[in-house]
């Protein structure tokens, strides 16, 4: 699969939105997500390695750091645009260096709009 295809937002109808997690070793995990769960919860409940979600999604740690591809970041939204600046502050301090598509996946809710989303799991979590 080429990079181009990998990050093209798909719009195919699905019973449940499909989220793909790419772990730091390149392994891909395609998960049918429950709408309303966060991208972090989806990963943890399905045992995707590398996303810890230690605080349970209460913006108390940076253990669910993911990199959202450029093609997706406008759909997902950028951390610096979130009104509550906590996520922004946490990401500045995350163990893996922040990138333009960095998000705490606990703050990204699964919607039909995100069907086909691909996120890369940050290599270090804190």
């Amino acid at each position, binding site marked *: 699969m080429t990079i181009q295809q990998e990050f093209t937002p798909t719009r195919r109808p699905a019973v449940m939105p499909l989220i793909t997690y790419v772990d730091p070793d390149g392994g891909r995990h395609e998960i049918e997500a*429950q709408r*309303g*769960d966060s991208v972090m*919860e989806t990963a*943890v*409940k*399905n*045992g995707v*390695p590398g996303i810890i979600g*230690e*605080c*349970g999604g*209460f*913006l*108390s*740690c*940076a253990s669910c750091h993911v990199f959202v591809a450029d093609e997706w970041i406008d759909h997902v939204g950028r951390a610096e645009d979130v009104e509550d600046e*906590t996520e922004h*502050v*946490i990401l*500045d*301090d995350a163990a893996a260096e922040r990138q333009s598509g960095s998000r705490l996946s606990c703050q990204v809710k699964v919607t039909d709009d995100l069907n086909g989303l691909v996120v890369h799991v940050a290599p270090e979590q*804190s």
Partner: protein
Amino acid sequence: MSNDVLVVGASQAGVQLAASLRELGHDGAITLVGAEPHLPYQRPPLSKAYLAGAATAESLALRNDAFYASHDIDLIRGDRVADVDLDSGKATTETGRTLSFDRLALTTGARVIRLPIPGADLPGVLYLRDLDDADMLAQVLPSARSVVVVGGGFIGLEAAAVCRNAGKDVTVVEMGARLAARAVAPVVSDFYRQAHERRGTAIRLGRTVTELLGDKGAVTAARLDDGSVLAADLVLVGVGVAPRIELAEQIGLEIRNRAIVVDRFAQTSDPRVVAAGDCTLLPHPRGGDDMVRLESVQNAVDQAKIAAATLLGEKKPYSTVPWFWSDQDTLKLKIAGLSTGYDDVVVRGDPGTEKFSVLYYRSGKLLALDSINQTADYLLVRRLLGAGGTVPAERAADVDIPLKSLAVTNAG
């Protein structure tokens, strides 16, 4: 040699322990037994988002149903291990199941302490520990008018904040001279009292509830030790928890302060048994001779990982900087480190703004930090403590200098 593991207790620690065993390559059987009928779930949101209606029971699940099958974890729900024989490697449950194992993990958690007073069993008197408790509370809260919260610790204060936000008359009755005294310094306790009072919650310190009064089979009021009577059609009790140690006692494990004694490797006094989470008394993770109990998600998770490694013969000492959090309305408390034994505190910022941090020191060495709506300070200090660093006490109050610039790493 077979190495089948029986994990007793299917909450945060037990689920983590089972998951970590598989992650570390364990190929023996894993049986995970939980007393509750629900898919194992997260407890912290019960007194926060779940109670406020911002989370569903489904979203609280720690793992999907399919996770247990795909990781070959035999999850038994709604049953309780009643009897364990280590020598034969057999356990029996209340419903009569016999379970075989080579190694045992106790993640039995803690139960709420019940009020030993007249009227405590009246309908309308609720506790906050389990999903069922939270569901019951969610059911009765809408029709309640006056809520008395017994216990001014974090659980009580979190619940009080939710009730107050739901428009109820709320009174918190705390036996101690200040709020959350076991966890935070007086300056933070005072801050909480003022912040909750600003939000319209009444706080009664140094008072105990001596009796709950009822009418037509439901609670109507709480009588305090000074004779005053508070109207209450809902009483929420959050006066602490006690470790579940019955099995550990039956096996003959070392018990101290009513908790299961473990070492830095989550090993109990019997080499065949590990324990993790709320049920344990463990060496202070940052060294020294102190033994501590840590009632937190962080400890449940990190200690369970250590316990799983120990079961597989990989000994990794537990050294994580403890951390905690508590959300009360807009007040986001985050604690890094353990302040036990502090001899000095420095307040950074003005508590009146509901945005400040408190640094705890012993002999000039930084032990811990509480931050209210100051996540950057919390993150910095959590990492700093992990690296053995400090912030000089004499400069820590200066808010004109970012805490980051004041940090000194690798200080003694």
